[in-house]
């Protein structure tokens, strides 16, 4: 009888340890996935500076677009091609001295890197990271004012990440090329800025 009770207690204790281990493991993983990025006053200032820069770009772009024949919503391929070419050249001309780091300043880059590090934790996010690395981006020249190569694939921007990054106006897009994060003009696909080694 005593022996049976002894075995029962041991089995019970083992199950308890196992269950608590699983629960802790799950909690750790969930916590890692759900962990919000802490936004300090310094981060807030960095985000504000980034948004101010974005706003000034949009103002500049609106002036550029005002001088480019408007593209209708039922355009021919030739019209689309001509519009894109004109836009690429006009944006380049409007920002002749543009250089890397104007938008992704060190403080903004630091905030974004921390956000990415938090977002890309966990097994499923590891797979997502691999998917981004597998994106066929051959032909993309990482240079400000250069258009993103038309033949290259676009990496999908993770929906969960986009909810945590500063929201961009419809004219701009975040995009990954390998570990680098790009800021791209949506219509012309011109690279406005980029941040090397953004992904952990």
């Amino acid at each position, binding site marked *: 009888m005593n022996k049976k009770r002894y075995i029962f207690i041991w089995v019970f204790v083992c199950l308890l340890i196992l269950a608590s281990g699983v629960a802790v493991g799950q909690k750790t993983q969930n916590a890692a996935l759900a962990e919000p990025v802490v936004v300090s006053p310094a981060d807030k200032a960095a985000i504000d500076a980034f948004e101010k820069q974005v706003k000034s770009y949009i103002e500049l772009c609106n002036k550029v677009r005002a001088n480019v024949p408007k593209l209708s919503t039922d355009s021919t391929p030739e019209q*689309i091609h001509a519009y894109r070419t004109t836009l690429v050249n006009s944006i380049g001309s409007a920002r002749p001295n543009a250089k890397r780091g104007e938008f992704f300043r060190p403080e903004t880059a630091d905030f974004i890197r921390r956000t990415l590090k938090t977002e890309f934790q966990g097994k499923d996010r590891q797979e997502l990271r691999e998917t981004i690395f597998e994106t066929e981006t051959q032909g993309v020249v990482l240079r400000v004012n250069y258009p993103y190569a038309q033949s290259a*694939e676009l990496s*999908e921007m993770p929906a969960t*990440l*986009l*909810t945590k990054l500063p929201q961009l106006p419809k004219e701009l897009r975040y995009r990954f090329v390998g570990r680098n994060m790009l800021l791209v003009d949506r219509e012309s696909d011109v690279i406005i800025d980029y941040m090397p080694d953004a992904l952990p």
Partner: protein
Amino acid sequence: MRRTHTHRLLFALLISAILFTPAYAQRLNAPSPPLKLTLPLKDGSVRFAVIGDTGSGTAQQREVGDMMIKYHALFPFDFVLMMGDNMYGGEAPQDFENKFAQPYRALLDNKVKFYATLGNHDQALQVNYENFNMNGKEYYRFTKGNIAFYSLNSNYMDKKQVKWLEDELGRETAAWKVMFFHHPPYSSAKAHGSDGQLREVVEPIFLKYGVDVVLTGHDHVYERIKPQKGIYYFVSGAGGKLRSGDVDKQSGIIDKSYDRDLHFMLFEVAGDQMYFQAISRTGETIDSGVITRK
């Protein structure tokens, strides 16, 4: 010199052996299966086709287009939903012709409308293309009969798009709610598979507002996913590119799959019934069935 002759002779023998094997001859001479329509052709029904990952510009893509026009004669569908990757490897004017207009010329000439969504190989300005009917928008909604169709941009599901989707679904009055976009929230395919992070964001919205059917592409196969939390998911990503043998049949999430050839789909909605038929490039019916709206 003698060696070159020997090589030529061996090469000729090898080619002859391949050409005259029964399997190859059978493939060359294989008659197409007779066209078989499983859809009921009910009066007043909404009829449409679905194609995905089409823009390769290959002979096979054109053959799918040819088969679609043959079925159009049997089943006159009014419009086609495109699941994205409408153009691979460049978007010069000639690409629009080779990878879209030419393969589907007969359908376009028959006034069949195409509604596109953007894939990971598509440039943003496709939204302005006259034949894609996107009205300059990356995500949009339109209705046909008692169905509301939502085309989403799954490349870039930002807060703004999520809000738009919630707002639109919140005031939706159509009986059927059908989503179509590129990346599949559920897929068994080995190349890409389920897009977990996209699912994390959109699935709660689909459930909250009673979405019925989700149509996607990206994986170059056909998959009818087992209903997930009451929603029917299809992957139709082999309209122009095929990843042969890519389906993971052991995944446990598929009801029916096909990864041996290109395909397209036909749908007919009549009242609370949605009939579907998946057809291969050669005209073989690879899946069919009916979904009843709850």
